[in-house]
């Protein structure tokens, strides 16, 4: 094959080759030493560094969500629960044919196009071995169907997690609020460490106000993961600390009575425990079911709630600002008496109209057609019959400054400081207020309008209840409060040390007048005194929604119902030893006496009957149940 004519010299070939091999052996040994030195450097000299690197690689801390605190009513009834909620997940990695699998699932349980779209969007973002939710909140039947067919549904799994549930549904929506997924704005504000492992946060209501107590402390698991982040095993674990359980003053049964009494209307009612300031009931109707909000309510459903003319999402009790109408008359009377503007014997003649010096146009009394309230209208009669002209008169005498300043002591135009977010302040106008907000000077005409709770003045139903409680307690500065206990530990009411400085004689006088509103034959609230075995003190009110020319007569038959007057009522009972005070409004209910007062009677009846039973030891569970422990995998 290969030919070369050169004569070979085996000895020389051998010698050259041997030298070259020796040379190679030296190089081989040198390079091998270099490599071993490199491994020595990595494995011995820098061993610790790499051990740390290796541990950082594989060991990760995974958060374990704490169980959110439960909320109970004063009787220990569960208002906000955590329930296992079942989610159908697909693990993309283990599904052989995704579209076929989804089609199969679709034939078994109802799945909307929106679910599928959302699933596909999320599946793109997560690792293929991670379960991606397809349908939340499976019903028991759906779970059964899926379990039976599991053999043809390879790649699916049903997981359980604790989710908030409001068993009382619309009964307490405006008090409890709800939790929902943390949104972008919230994620910037919260301490991220506390929310590792949970997607939910209190959005409104108590859930928001007591978020830090309800949340609990996040737990941590040290897990070993592989390079793709799949968890291989749990190395160590620190259990999460459950959130604190709240007990609130609300009485679920009373709440139900109030809601039923207001059903079909638009309005709000707040009932306060006169002794403690605890909110016994807080109703805003119409209400809504907060449960769909937890998972993210559908746009359609949400729009329906949002655009409803009845505004169910609007918390009227806390945020609704209405003219208080005649309900503030007792307060103005007290201010007049205590400041010596007039005395208990002072009376006027009411022809049905009130004329102001220099102003041609008169202010009408509500019964101007019947010729007014006649001769000898004193403060008591003015309250009992709700005489406007009397208050026009004393209003001007007292003057805006005094009215404005001292009404604030009854909570009017002030935030009550209730433990709920988003409370409205209302308006207790003053000269400065008008200057700042209307760029106008204060006129006596404004005082006249205000002296019957109209004009610029606005109050929330909560403020009316607080006002009523302060009258009932003879001047205790009561602060309304929902929270009764946190984890069984009583939260004492925050009571101001000082009381309103008003003589007992005046309190007696005003209480007497308010009792007569209900119990006297000429009282505006007399329709509710039938078969009363205790005494209710109250005051009716009617608030104009549209301004009617002062000379015109209000005629509901000519007006759209949405523009009818609001009916209001404030009350406390039993009058001799007040326990419950309340304020309520029925939007477009026309007359406080006819629409609002009977609702108050039902609520007070229910409360006193119930507390009577409690005292005699029937049906009372003061200690809330311990939260049920549900194992979640």
């Amino acid at each position, binding site marked *: 094959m290969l030919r070369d004519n050169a004569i070979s010299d085996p000895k020389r070939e051998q010698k050259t080759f041997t030298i070259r091999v020796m040379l190679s052996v030296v190089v081989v040994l040198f390079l*091998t030493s270099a490599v071993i030195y490199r*491994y020595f450097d990595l*494995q011995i000299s820098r061993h610790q560094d790499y051990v740390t690197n290796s541990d950082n*690689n*594989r060991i990760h801390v995974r958060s374990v969500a704490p169980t959110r605190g439960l909320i109970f009513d004063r009787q220990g009834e569960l208002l906000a629960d955590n329930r296992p909620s079942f989610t159908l997940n697909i693990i993309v990695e283990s599904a052989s044919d995704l579209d076929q699998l989804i089609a199969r699932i679709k034939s078994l349980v109802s799945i909307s196009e929106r679910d599928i779209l959302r699933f596909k969007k999320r599946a793109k973002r997560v690792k293929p071995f991670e379960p991606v939710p397809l349908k939340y909140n499976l019903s028991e039947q759906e779970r059964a169907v899926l379990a039976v067919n599991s053999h043809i549904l390879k790649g699916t799994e049903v997981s359980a997690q604790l989710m908030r549930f409001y068993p009382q549904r619309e009964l307490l929506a405006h008090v409890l609020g709800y939790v929902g997924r943390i949104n972008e704005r919230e994620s910037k504000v919260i301490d991220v460490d506390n929310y590792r492992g949970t997607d939910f946060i209190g959005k409104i209501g108590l859930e928001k106000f007591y978020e830090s107590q309800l949340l609990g402390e996040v737990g941590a698991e040290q897990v*070993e993961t592989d390079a793709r982040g799949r968890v291989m095993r749990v190395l160590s674990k620190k259990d999460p600390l459950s959130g604190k359980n709240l007990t609130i003053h609300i009485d679920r049964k009373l709440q139900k009575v109030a809601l039923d009494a207001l059903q079909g209307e638009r309005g709000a009612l707040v009932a306060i425990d006169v002794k403690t300031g605890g909110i016994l009931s807080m109703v805003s109707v119409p209400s809504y079911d907060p449960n769909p909000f937890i998972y993210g309510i559908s746009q359609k459903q949400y729009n329906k709630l949002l655009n409803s003319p009845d505004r169910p999402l609007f918390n009227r009790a806390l945020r609704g600002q209405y003219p208080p109408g005649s309900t503030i008359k007792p307060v103005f009377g007290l201010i007049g008496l205590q400041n010596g503007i007039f005395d208990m014997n002072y009376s006027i003649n009411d022809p049905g109209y009130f004329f102001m010096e220099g102003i041609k146009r008169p202010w009408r009394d509500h019964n101007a057609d019947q010729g007014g309230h006649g001769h000898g209208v004193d403060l008591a009669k003015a309250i009992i019959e709700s005489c406007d002209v009397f208050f026009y008169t004393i209003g001007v005498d007292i003057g805006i400054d005094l009215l404005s300043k001292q009404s604030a002591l009854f909570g009017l135009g002030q935030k009550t400081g209730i433990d709920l977010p988003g409370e409205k302040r209302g308006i207790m106008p003053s000269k400065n207020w008008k200057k700042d907000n209307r760029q106008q000077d204060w006129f006596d005409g404004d005082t006249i309008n205000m002296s019957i709770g109209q004009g610029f003045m606005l109050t929330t139903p909560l403020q009316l209840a607080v006002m009523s409680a302060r009258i009932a307690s003879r001047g205790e500065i009561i602060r309304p409060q929902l929270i009764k206990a946190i984890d069984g530990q009583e939260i004492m009411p925050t009571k101001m040390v000082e009381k309103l400085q008003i003589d007992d004689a005046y309190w007696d006088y005003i209480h007497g007048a308010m009792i007569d509103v209900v119990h006297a034959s000429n009282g505006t609230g007399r329709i509710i005194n039938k078969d009363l075995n205790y005494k209710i003190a109250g005051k009716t009110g009617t608030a104009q929604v549209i301004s009617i020319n002062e000379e015109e007569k209000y005629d509901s038959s000519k007006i759209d119902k949405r523009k009818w007057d609001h009916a209001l009522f404030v009350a406390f009972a039993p009058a001799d030893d007040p326990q419950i005070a309340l304020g309520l409004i029925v939007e477009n209910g026309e007359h406080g006496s006819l629409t609002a007062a009977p609702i108050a009677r039902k609520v007070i009846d229910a409360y006193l009957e119930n507390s009577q039973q409690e005292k005699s030891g029937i049906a009372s569970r003061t200690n809330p149940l311990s939260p049920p422990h549900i194992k979640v995998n």
Partner: protein
Amino acid sequence: MYKHDFVRRLDTKGGDRRQNPFHIDFTLLMILLTLCITGLFVLYSASEQSMYYVKRQATFMLAGFSGMLIVAQFPVRFWERWALYFYLSALFALVAVLFFGIEAKGATRWLNLGFTRFQPSEIAKIAVPMMVSAYLGRRHIPPKFKHVVGALCLVGLPALMIIRQPDLGTAILVFTSGFFALFLAGLRKRYVIGSFLGGLAVAPILWLYVMRDYQKQRVLTLLSPEDDKFGAGWNIIQSTTAIGSGGLTGKGWTLGTQSQLNFLPESHTDFIIAVLAEEFGLVGIIGLCIAYLMLIGKCMLIALNAQSQFARLMAGSISLTFFIYMFVNMSMVSGLLPVVGVPLPLISYGGSAIVTLFFGFGILMAISSEPKRIGAWR
């Protein structure tokens, strides 16, 4: 019968082939067996304790061993004569790859034969030194300039084709294996030094015109792996972490977290040494190096005792090539050299490499079982 054979005959003790009737070198066989079995254990751990790769690899090894024993039965002269045809078929296969190759991971390196796939560049690793040895075995010692040029052409042609695949690492190794034959044949010092300097001069040209972006990236990555932690730097960071965290005695067989949890890429092929280092520590590494050095030493002895120039050059270049694989692989995994696709001989998973290696050892056995000279190295 050529005259050289005849001349050499005079120098030998006599043709007693019966001393070793099956042409088996037992020392070599034992070292190979030890390495292969070690390799299977490491492979089992590296492939997440599945028997799939182990079974396949064992099959390859069995085929390799059989091939080796068959190859050993042929006289050395047979291989010398067939070197050219072997070389030409390797070239043919390399050309075929360029046209009909299977593409994987951006490179075309595989040929599909219907029943199996193989890498022609692996064959080139043995065919090239064989060809160069045969070419130089019949020529002047030290080789004349024209023969040096001739040998370089024999080496350069397949190397260029492998670069086209592209597989720069294998191309360089193929080139090196041919160069070893030249070096052992007594290439003059000035050529050795000249080629070393030439290599330095060629480097920038390679960088500018031959190397692909990903290849350049690998070199840059070597210099600073932290620049691209999750991209190009990932492999080297994970392999050094695996090696370093192994410490002196390692984490234990199948207990290496880096490899078991898939942090280590290519853990059953090119990066298998990191698995060994993690699980058996420095002790394991030194043990492996000792086994390799024994193997290389034994091969060198065979080379020194060989009867013909071809046999010497062949045996010498096979052992040096074997060393280079080991060195390059261990260096690249530990971050001393850029990542080039060089498997760890006898340990890494891969059929083509195993078969090629055993083919080489078969020739070494054939050489070793040739009758010995008087005063041979023992």
